[in-house]
């Protein structure tokens, strides 16, 4: 409760938007600071200071390889999840069809749309329709991209089953998984093992913004999109964000070490939050079965209201949350995820995503439980 400059200026806040971004771990800040001050060498250089930076990258690569279940040489540093997702999809356009699910993040969905790819529906449970996936596959498919956990409703996708279907029906295809939302909550090293390409983003697990990883497994024929200096073994040119990468590695290490303890602590808080709201606010629909979701995700739809108005009232009462994905203007756009789940538009327009994380406390949940029911009631009474 009450961290950061906003809280210092405005009093304590309940930050329930960890799926959007997380506070950077103090250890990660400490790890990166020397690379913003004294250790500024270019890792591609030849002298001692350059080698110092390069060693830091190598160390980070080892830590992240361990966290992601791959070899250090399979780690490609990127500017974040969107670049990793884009690079994965665009690397395979022109080699055949690309296929993804309808609930992918726009960082996958938009590239697939741009190249005229195939989009596979999901079941109302929020899990990709495996029959539809099978039907969408054939020998012409070059890439299949199915996320490990969804960013809005939190549902976990059955990646090993997906992989079996891909191997059977599109044997040439590589499998990409966007594990950006999964990493804080799931054993990505194990669960993403069947994937050839894996994306993560540092700021979703206590690292800084603007840095991420695309795992490119050895033997996978990957075509670089960003070329130039040949960094990252010719898979992503451009001087690496050394400080960000060092911080990301530290955050990843902490996340993996603490994952089970965090899940054990957050799950009852999430359940108390969801159950409390379901009980105290009539006309509330939980979008997906909690047993199939990541622990930090509480996603509800309140009938008869509009998310935008609700978020405004919650902010006034120091609860920070989200509805659907935000567009560049800051407006809330209708959720393509809820549409894909078959949630009627009038229900979907009252969606609220409360995402918990490492920093969440019981006080955060208490405040949300105190503020949300009267806010929903007010909007229902007055229209929104």
């Amino acid at each position, binding site marked *: 409760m009450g961290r950061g400059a906003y809280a210092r200026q405005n009093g304590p806040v309940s930050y329930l938007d960890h799926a959007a971004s997380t506070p950077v771990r103090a250890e990660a800040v400490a790890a990166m600071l020397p690379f913003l001050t004294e250790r500024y060498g270019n890792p591609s250089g030849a002298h001692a200071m350059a080698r110092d930076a390069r060693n830091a990258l190598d160390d980070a690569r080892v830590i992240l390889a361990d966290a992601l279940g791959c070899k250090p040489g399979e780690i490609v540093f990127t500017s974040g999840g969107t670049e990793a997702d884009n690079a994965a999809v665009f690397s395979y356009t022109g080699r055949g069809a690309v296929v993804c699910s309808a609930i992918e993040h726009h960082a996958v969905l938009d590239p697939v749309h741009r190249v005229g790819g195939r989009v596979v529906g999901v079941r109302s449970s929020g899990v990709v329709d495996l029959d539809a996936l099978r039907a969408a596959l054939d020998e012409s498919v070059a890439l299949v991209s199915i996320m490990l956990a969804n960013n809005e409703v939190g549902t976990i996708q059955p990646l090993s089953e997906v992989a079996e279907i891909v191997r059977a029906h599109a044997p040439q295809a590589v499998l990409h998984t966007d594990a950006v939302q999964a990493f804080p909550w799931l054993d990505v090293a194990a669960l993403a093992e069947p994937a050839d390409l894996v994306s993560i983003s540092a700021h979703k697990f206590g690292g800084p913004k603007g840095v991420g990883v695309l795992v490119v497994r050895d033997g996978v024929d990957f075509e670089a999109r960003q070329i130039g200096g040949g960094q990252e073994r010719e898979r992503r040119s451009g001087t690496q964000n050394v400080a960000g990468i060092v911080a990301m590695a530290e955050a990843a290490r902490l996340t993996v070490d603490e994952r089970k303890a965090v899940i054990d602590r957050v799950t009852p808080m999430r359940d108390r939050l969801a159950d409390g709201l379901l009980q105290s606010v009539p006309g509330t629909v939980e979008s997906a079965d909690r047993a199939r979701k990541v622990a930090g995700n509480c996603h509800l739809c309140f009938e008869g209201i*509009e998310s*935008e*108005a609700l978020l*405004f*009232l919650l902010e*006034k009462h120091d609860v920070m949350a989200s509805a659907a994905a935000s*567009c*560049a*203007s*800051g*407006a*809330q*756009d*209708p959720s393509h995820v809820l549409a894909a789940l078959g949630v009627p538009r009038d229900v979907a327009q009252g969606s609220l995503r409360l995402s918990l994380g490492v920093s969440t406390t019981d006080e955060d949940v208490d405040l949300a439980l105190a503020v949300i029911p009267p806010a929903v009631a*007010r*909007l229902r009474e*007055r*229209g*929104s």
Partner: protein
Amino acid sequence: MKVLVAMSGGVDSSVAAALLLDAGHHVTGVTMKLWGGESDTGCCSVSDVDDARRGARVLGIDHHVFNFGDRFDADVVSPYIAAHAAGDTPNPCIECNRHVKFDKLLVRARALGFDAIATGHHARVVDQPDGTRRIARGADHAKDQSYVLYMLGQRQLDGTLLPVGGITKAEVRSMAARLGLPTAVKPDSQDVCFITSSTGRAGFLRSRVPFTPGRVVDGVTGAELGRVDAVELVTVGQRRGVGLSGGDGTPRYVTGVDVDTATITVGPERDLLGDEVVLRDVVWADQPVSGQVHAQCSAHGAALPGSFDAATGTLTWDQPRRRVAPGQAVVLYDGDAVIGGGLALRSGVNEGTNAHLGDARTVR
């Protein structure tokens, strides 16, 4: 008061927010995201949202974005397309005010605990001796926007502030410059916000309305004089664009558009003149009024004298004037104050019937 000011990203609404702050109100800014498609400017693009946000920061007020795209599509864009398809003249800015700014936004503002909304329109809200309120012309008559606010009744006027209505556009700009608002030198928005200057109205409609090629006929003889590619793009009163002048060199005007028969009727200016226009969907600032009024038929047209019969919706002009294009808004004034208004039904010679008025077809 707690006031929610609609900030389009233009200079008028930024200054409106500043004037409200000066008056001691508690001010929050909001930009409505209305249109997801292409746009030059207006109220829709990300750059306009950024301009509004920067203006709000200069003023030190909170700024939010509301996505009213669904409502805008349903109540502004779709009717705009449907009106063109039917050969009528739509009023998108008026419908946006009616359904989005002064309904959707006002209702939401009240639900969120605001006492009033404000916009940057150049018009005033004035108190009447009987305690009711009226929209009145802005102090800068050249920039007056009272016409596009004619639909506001007492329910809306009780919760609406129009801070720049009392000053001129020049004063708005100088105040913006003095405050360091980034919008101080931004050009005024023009035309319909969801239509780009590069593709224009025809480009916007081409992918949304099946265009009907039509005949251009002489209003008296019925002789075919030419052809047009799209009757949906022709408006009564139009002179250019149908490729004609009279045999004697006198200009010809479009006097009728019939989409059903794909016929454009043309004639000399005298055929365009009418004595009256019947209004539909008439709304009043307060009570219905019959009798002598001034009526304005476009955003910056002159208000001309006439007599209105509220029972039949008929406005009889004191002097014959060019007929009003069907669908166009006609706003009734008492002096500078708006008393009501409605949309022109098909009127005058050679054209449609007023089905809802029974056998009230007007013949000159």
